[in-house]
């Protein structure tokens, strides 16, 4: 049994699975149910001046008959009075002293407002604060959420105001709706953040009803952009986590989120530098009980790998993530089709023929059976065939020993530069 307990900038939780600040953490009732189900922590749905919500708030994007590949919402922060939330936080913390409760906060960008709310929530015993500089819809139109999170100076300044009074660790939650998230992450660090969390939701329009021509979702026939999350956003989130993790000046822990649906994504995020993960869409899709397999699967994974503590995963793959210019141009892989496993759907052939490098031939073997064969000399190792293959083990991408020494683009350019600046004419 591996140690699943987490320590993120001093915030401790029995396991690395937290519920993200979102509809699942709207009330004490819900958070207590979540802790009973086994969640390690919860970031309370963002506190601030109670707002008004609209009716019709969520929409999902399905794919090939699957319901929730992506999820979109236009719900705002808490619509309940601050006092009610504070009372429920107090009660919940009392009942579950070992679970992490983090208060997500969003107020107008003034020093006074930040000081006021920080004191109030710390008084009821939260384990940490998460500053919501990420929500892309509604609140951003009022200068809060991602409107703050898109301006590095505002991130830095507001973080600093919070740090002036905060006694618990401060996490700054960042928006992905920005060209380079490391700018705002670095600003948070400069402002004194103890950790950053990412990603908040991505600006999105889930769809248009092709019969009514209304947006999805719509409120009385009108729509507005929402925030996108769920399994489909994982690659975007994972990249942002990784970019921050490998950035030399972003040296605080990262709480990772965006498309975590099982223990597998949690492992991926942690290997790429996240100290624990936050989850929302998967819980909204299936209920709180999904955390059981998250913990169980993670534990079995760690046991199988002989890893004692989940904290040992954090950042293990970060050094493997770099710039394109550092990739070996001379490394070569080719596709190898295992005809004994292949079921002859020919998807690899047509994918390669129509959209890649025309190197998979449909042939007959000596017995007259249909076979597929890769012309290795023409294969560029793009992986497309193995991606479209519906059968495990039918296509392997194998290393092709071409005898060339490793050479990256950067090394190549440096070598060319060295030659051209050389006094001796080497070509002669």
């Amino acid at each position, binding site marked *: 049994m591996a140690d699943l307990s987490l320590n993120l900038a001093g915030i401790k939780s029995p396991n690395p699975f937290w519920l993200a600040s979102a509809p699942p953490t709207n009330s004490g009732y819900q958070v207590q149910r979540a802790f009973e189900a086994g969640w390690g922590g919860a970031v309370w749905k963002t506190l601030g001046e109670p707002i008004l919500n609209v009716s019709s708030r969520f929409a999902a994007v399905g794919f*090939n*008959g699957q319901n929730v590949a992506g999820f979109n919402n236009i719900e705002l922060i808490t619509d309940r009075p601050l006092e009610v939330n504070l009372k429920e936080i107090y009660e919940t913390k009392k009942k579950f002293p070992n679970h992490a409760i983090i208060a997500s906060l969003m107020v107008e960008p003034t020093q006074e407002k930040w000081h006021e709310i920080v004191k109030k929530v710390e008084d009821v015993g939260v384990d940490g604060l998460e500053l919501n500089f990420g929500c892309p819809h509604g609140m951003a139109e009022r200068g809060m959420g991602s409107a703050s999170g898109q301006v590095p100076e505002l991130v830095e300044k507001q973080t600093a105001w919070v740090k002036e009074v905060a006694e618990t660790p401060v996490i700054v939650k960042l928006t992905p709706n920005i060209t380079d998230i490391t700018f705002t992450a670095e600003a948070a660090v400069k402002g004194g953040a103890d950790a950053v969390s990412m990603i908040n939701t991505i600006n999105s329009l889930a769809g248009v009803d092709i019969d009514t021509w209304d947006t999805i979702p719509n409120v009385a026939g009108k729509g507005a952009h929402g925030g996108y999350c769920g399994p489909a956003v994982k690659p975007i989130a994972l990249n942002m986590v990784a970019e921050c993790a490998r950035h030399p000046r972003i040296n605080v822990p990262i709480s990772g989120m965006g498309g975590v649906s099982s223990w597998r994504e949690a492992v991926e995020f942690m290997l790429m530098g996240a100290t624990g993960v936050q989850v929302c869409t998967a819980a909204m899709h299936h209920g709180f009980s999904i955390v059981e397999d998250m913990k169980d699967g993670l534990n079995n994974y760690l046991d199988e790998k002989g890893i004692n503590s989940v904290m040992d995963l954090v950042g293990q793959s970060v050094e493997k993530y770099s710039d394109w210019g550092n990739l070996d141009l001379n490394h070569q892989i080719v596709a190898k089709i295992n005809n004994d496993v292949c*079921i*002859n*759907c*020919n*998807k690899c*052939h*047509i994918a390669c023929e129509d959209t890649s490098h025309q190197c998979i031939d*449909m042939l007959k073997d000596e017995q007259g059976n249909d076979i597929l064969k890769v012309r290795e000399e023409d294969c560029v190792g793009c992986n497309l065939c193995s991606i479209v293959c*519906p*059968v495990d083990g039918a296509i392997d991408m194998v290393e092709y020993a071409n005898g060339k020494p490793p050479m990256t683009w950067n090394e190549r350019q440096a070598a060319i530069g060295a030659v051209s600046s050389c006094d001796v004419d080497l070509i002669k």
Partner: protein
Amino acid sequence: MTTLKSKGISLENLKLNFEEVHDGLNAQEAMEESNRCLYCYDAPCIKACPTGIDIPKFIKKIASGNLKGSATTIMSANPVGASCARVCPTEELCEGACVLNHSTEPIVIGDLQRFATDWAIKNEQILFKPGEKNGRKVAVVGGGPAGLSAARELARFGYEVTIFEAAEEAGGLDTYGIVSFRLPQDISRWEVDQVEKLDVEIRTNTRVGTDVTFDELAEQYDSIVLTIGMGNVPMLGIEGENLEGVHDAIEFVKRTKSGAITKELLGKNVVVVGAGNTAIDAATCAARKGAADVKIVYRRTAKEMTAYEFEYDFAKQDDVEFNWLTQPIEIIGDNTGKVTQLKCVKMDLGEADEDGRRRPVPVENSEFNIEVDAVIKAIGQSRYTDLIEGFGLDHEGGVVKVDPETLQTSNPNVYAAGDVIFAKGQGEAMVVTAAQQGKEIAMAIHKQLDPTPTAII
């Protein structure tokens, strides 16, 4: 409601027993299943379909919600595609070829085809338009699957087509021969209607040779398509065949598809002679008409019978009892002329005969009697030899000889397809094969009469 044993067969409302047994997919199931299709390139299911339906294409269209396109894809390749969705032996054709047989479970192609065509039927879609008239006329003799298929294609090419149909309605076996609980008549009627909507004239209750002469057809039409199928069940050649209670399986099934379901077999003992597709149909119809006991007697064994595995299973579910190696030798009646017993002899399998099946030989002193109220003969179908000879066509025992490429008979203006050219040892006589042959005839006629290529609308 009183039901028989485990059968779920109503003895009070016999009509219920003839409603379609298989529900088909609901929209959700169709969506899930269609999304499971891999959309293979050069897909083996297409090659396994005698009519070459682009199966991945029609399935993808179900997944995208383009049901009209899906039904059009199906019906374009197979003018009786709605019937075939129900009656094709898909395990042996498309589904048997599905690559997923090698990894998980094959796609239920037949059910998806039914889903798309049912949608078209329910939404009263007209999927095709007649071609621009080219001034040429074709007579189609026999409005079964082969004839409808030829007529549909010819009409799309611009021919003026008249179908001569002896029965009250067109559709042939699809309308009259395949049991309602597998193929409701409405499905066949919709397919007939699709053909009629292309300005094809269907003259029902019109028997060629009687109501219209061969010479009239030859004079009035540029080409003749002969798709007359086969006739009733031949005589067993034993005593007692004319007794009351001895039925022809084709006629017997046809009566269950025309008019009310009658009660004369309720609680009775029935023996069906033969073990082909029609024998199974007759036996299950008898069971569903409330017969207390239905036996099939067959002179060979399960291995040699021509019924499909799924038909065999279906009959067993209806509690039909199979008596292998049993040959009827006499039908015995009482003094009022009603059948009372079937005298049989046990058989043994000897040497293989010309079609490769082992020849049954009687076992000495093995005669026995079965108490029966009805005997249904299902030992194959006779040929319309008179009609074929009336047209002056070369034939072999009632099987019209054709050029295998063009399906042209010994008379270059007469083409033939379907059961009328189906000879022993040629594989399976399937609706889908007849449909394909109809298409091929249309193409051959078009080549012969109008060699300039025409785009199909």
